[in-house]
């Protein structure tokens, strides 16, 4: 269980996140809805330790306290981030990227088994093993980014706009894969522009507006709320 509380981020005078609290259990998909600039990416980066936070944040994963750890230590505790823009090593090969994914000590045991699982999940990566990562298509790079994160043996996976720049077919395929990742017992925190697809696979969702959580409910309920329909699903509430 990942528990985040009292998390605030400021860029200069601008308060990007204000005392945010979220929770994700293993084997659960939680999505964060929010407009551009609502602070969704900042939230994921702050949890992963990549951006500085204001004092007072509480982040814990199971029995580990992550509140004051640097990013590279947080990965060791079982929390992996797939950043927006993927963050793969473009000049290295697919194989090398996956090797680096298993760099955390917690990922060394059973590395070969895990690699086999990742390559089964993303068969394309097996074909492209020796290819330089940046020469692959956007969809393949996204697969590599997720595959690399899974190589670190995470309990919780944070995904920042994984569908960005992908064709509709690829998006569909990607979300089907995320479902299978959940079935393996990983908890997923998903930030998405594509609210339709993300609510379809999510168990729960948070709504982030101007740096604060304004709503939190099951995905089922969120889908039918008029405000959500209007703002994120591009529709009017059904007439009753």
């Amino acid at each position, binding site marked *: 269980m990942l528990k985040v509380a009292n998390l605030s981020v400021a860029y200069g005078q601008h308060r990007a996140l204000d005392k945010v609290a979220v929770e994700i259990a293993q084997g659960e998909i939680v999505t964060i809805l929010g407009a551009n600039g609502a602070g969704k990416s900042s939230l994921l980066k702050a949890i992963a330790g*990549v951006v500085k936070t204001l004092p007072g944040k509480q982040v814990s994963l199971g029995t580990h306290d992550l509140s004051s750890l640097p990013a590279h230590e947080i*990965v060791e505790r079982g929390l992996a981030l797939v950043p927006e823009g993927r963050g793969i090593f473009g000049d290295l090969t697919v194989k*090398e990227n996956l090797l*680096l994914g298993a760099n955390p000590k917690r990922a060394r045991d059973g590395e070969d088994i895990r690699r086999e699982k990742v390559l089964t999940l993303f068969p394309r990566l097996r074909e492209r093993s020796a290819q330089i990562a940046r020469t692959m298509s956007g969809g393949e790079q996204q697969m590599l980014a997720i595959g690399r994160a899974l190589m670190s043996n995470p309990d919780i996976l944070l995904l920042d706009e994984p569908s960005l720049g992908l064709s509709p077919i690829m998006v569909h395929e990607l979300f089907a894969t995320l479902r299978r990742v959940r079935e393996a017992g990983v908890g997923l925190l998903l930030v998405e522009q594509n609210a339709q697809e993300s609510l379809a696979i999510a168990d729960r969702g948070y709504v982030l507006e101007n740096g604060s959580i304004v709503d939190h409910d099951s995905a089922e309920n969120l889908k039918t709320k008029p405000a959500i329909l209007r703002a994120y699903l591009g529709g009017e509430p059904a007439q009753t």
Partner: protein
Amino acid sequence: MTNAILAGLMLGGMYALTAMGLTLQYGVARIMNLSYGEFLIAAAFASYWLFTGWALSPFLGLAFVVPLAFVASFIVYRVLLTPLVNRARNRDALEVDSILATFGLTFIIQGAMLSMFGGAYHSYSFLAFPVELLGTTIAANRLAALAVAVLLGAMLYLALTKTRIGTAIRAVAVDPSAAQLVAIDVPRISALTFALGGALVAAAGVLVSTFLTFNASSGVVFTMKALIIVVMGGVGNILGCLIAGLALGLSESLVATLVDPGLTLAVNFALFLAVLLIKPAGLFGRAAR
């Protein structure tokens, strides 16, 4: 002609070796180390001192000088450069800051060497006999130095491409912010890589000292040569370093034999300019995104 090509390859091999450490320091740790040549000369003096004072063969001297240089470079990074790293807003800012800091370091090391050894040129005689190779004669010490250089280069290349820590070092060079997401301790890897670069330049210094004369202020020549080779080959690229080093050595040697020895420096910079005009990111480099 064979003679010129052979001499050029030997020279180029040494150039490549002297530049390898800098390509690590600059490519991975993002430190533009202007005192690089001074580290090389300091190692050369250390080898001189071990050889003349303790009758220790330079090849055995490597076993002392190289680890010492590793530790010294690590300390320099941690004490002198880490504050700059923490302060720099981005990697470009760090580059500028590191140029200034290491420029200062140049004078400190030079001053120390001047006070210890004076300004006179030093050399010692080690394996100074001719060897017959492909119909020409070559000094044995140059050949031995080249052999060690090739060995070191091959080891470094294998370590960087075949091991997990080597791959991690390259990952830091490619994208330090993504590197932390795969549990790479970027400050630690940067410090270790800078130290590794220091160890390599010390090895180069010891090898060079077996066949070149040097004095306390010879360092700048090596810094310049190494810098040209690193930029020509593509920053952080070991293979590029080798090719650029060989190209430089060959062109110098050929021009010196066929045209005029006075033109070697000119051909150096002509080649450098040509590469920069055609491929600004270096032979194996890639333009910044």
